[in-house]
């Protein structure tokens, strides 16, 4: 009893820590003043203005599009790669793992500039495509680092047993292995999304004219002051994600209930 209370308290504490600044951000999206330093009154005007700002709206589209595409592609390549890495010879494996750390370790500016130089060298026209490649590149390690521990945990014999029982490798993989490692894949996907949505420096150096994400727009605003329009945009983004989650959650619980009833 005490233990579960303690657990609850700890969870609330951590979530308060994580959400405290988000609450501030949302509250200040209703602040009349252009500065975050003081509160001058309640207003909805930033929400209206944000829709009129074409810089914010297009960069929001690019942010979401690139985040979804890059993290999905990275999740697919990364998961497949992780499975392969497990079976690599030890020496090759450790080399590949060292390579995996590099995008995590390199300061963004180094990754950004070196990728920019590469794209120029290869004569890739800079734009959405190059930015997508860059995002996939720095997302991949997060997927691999999330999936590998799950694979290590996996009991290899299960897969072999499935094969012995006549399953095709593909069937055995999707029905036996995939469900086992899915928490790792999910984690990798989430972390990749997080990295992609929040990246400024690498995006800045790998994009081309006419394409920018929300982070670039926000950092560029810093000199003149980050507009409360940004707070409004982020608050709205936050609200939509939470709403989406609630819907998914509802459906999941409904499905679960139905399953239980049929059982």
């Amino acid at each position: 009893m005490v233990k579960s209370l303690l657990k609850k308290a700890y969870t609330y504490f951590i979530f308060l820590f994580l959400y405290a600044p988000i609450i501030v951000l949302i509250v200040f999206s209703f602040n009349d003043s252009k500065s975050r330093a003081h509160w001058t009154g309640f207003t909805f005007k930033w929400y209206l203005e944000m829709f009129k700002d074409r810089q914010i709206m297009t960069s929001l589209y690019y942010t979401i599009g690139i985040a979804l595409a890059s993290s999905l592609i990275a999740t697919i390549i990364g998961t497949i790669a992780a499975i392969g890495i497990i079976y690599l010879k030890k020496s090759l494996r450790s080399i590949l793992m060292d390579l995996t750390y590099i995008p995590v370790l390199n300061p963004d500016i180094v990754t950004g500039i070196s990728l920019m130089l590469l794209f120029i060298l290869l004569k890739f026209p800079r734009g959405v495509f190059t930015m997508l490649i860059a995002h996939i590149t720095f997302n991949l390690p997060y997927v691999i680092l999330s999936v590998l521990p799950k694979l290590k945990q996996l009991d290899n014999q299960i897969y072999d047993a499935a094969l012995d029982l006549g399953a095709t490798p593909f069937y055995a993989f999707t029905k036996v292995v995939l469900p086992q490692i899915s928490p790792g894949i999910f984690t990798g996907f989430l972390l990749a999304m997080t990295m992609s949505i929040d990246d400024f420096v690498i995006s800045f150096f790998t994009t081309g004219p006419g394409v920018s994400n929300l982070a670039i727009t926000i950092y560029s605003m810093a000199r003149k002051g980050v507009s409360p329009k940004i707070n409004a945009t982020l608050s709205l983004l936050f609200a939509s994600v939470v709403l989406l989650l609630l819907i998914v959650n509802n459906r999941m619980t409904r499905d679960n209930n139905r399953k239980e009833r049929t059982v």
Partner: protein
Amino acid sequence: MKFVLRSLLVTLLAITLIISLVGCGSDKDKPVLKVYNWGDYIDPSVLDGFEEEYGIKVIYDEFATNEEMYAKIKAGAGDYDILIPSDYTIKRMIDEDMLHKLDFDNIPNYKYIDSRFKDLAYDPNNEYSVPYMWGTVGILYNKKMVKEEVNSWKILWDKKYEKQILMLDSIRDSIGITLKMLEYSLNTKSDKELDEAKEALIKQKPLVLAYVGDEVKDKMIGGEAALAVVWSGDAIFAKRENPDLEYVIPKEGSNLWFDSVVIPKAGKNKKEAELFINYLCETEVAYQNADYIGYASPHIEAVKMLPDELITDKTAYPDDSDLVGSEVLEDLAGSLVKYDRIWTEVKSR
């Protein structure tokens, strides 16, 4: 299996989303102008107006610092037709042959630019650039916390204000004002003068609350510190939000800065770019921009149209006498390494 299919579907969706975004808005026949500017540094309706009047499509992007913009253009990663960098960056770009000479026959409205702002050190014969906005660096202070008269950089070394001083986390600006405090040029390459500046900065460090960047205006508006080194543009904004604040250009002189419009050689549409510069210099447009941005405009006629309280505010439009001893930042080329080293030493104590 369902999972795999579903994620593939979403990927496809996301990619189509992006591609459709790229696709839209590329009216093939219209000429295009690619503009690269600071964030929130133009009235959006000016861009619309230009597109309508000349039937040219504007692709508009924003950067956060001169340095990032320069690194990108220098590497050849952006074929922009119009850039709006600051003075010392322009100097460097001129020296490295990255800019087109302007054909002033195509920019008749150049005549409206105040002659005080022509032929400056970064572009001595004024062949490459047209001033867009200008300003100074000075001290922003809170009258409730600083009771004495502020007129010298020396106040930033006064122990009375321990932990109430905000310096800029910017190599050139912070070392620059220290050199000015010592009554040297802020473009000095002399080891002896730089050494003195280093000692002064190390001595000052315990008094400094923080080395800040763009967030300085919010800090001062919120009364977090008594004194701060700021750009005049920030000062104008901060004073409007908090009437206790006052801005002064110290008597030793300061840094006079310009953001000017230039045409990089990387671009492909010089004619359209000159048309755009000329458009920016139209009185009505320049006025609209000055009003929107809130910084000081170099356009004589546009300034006349601004409300009186803005023009009489010495923060934005200082008298000539306030600017005595002020200098424009020059590109230091090789000597920049010395500045970098000093800054690292100050920051490692």
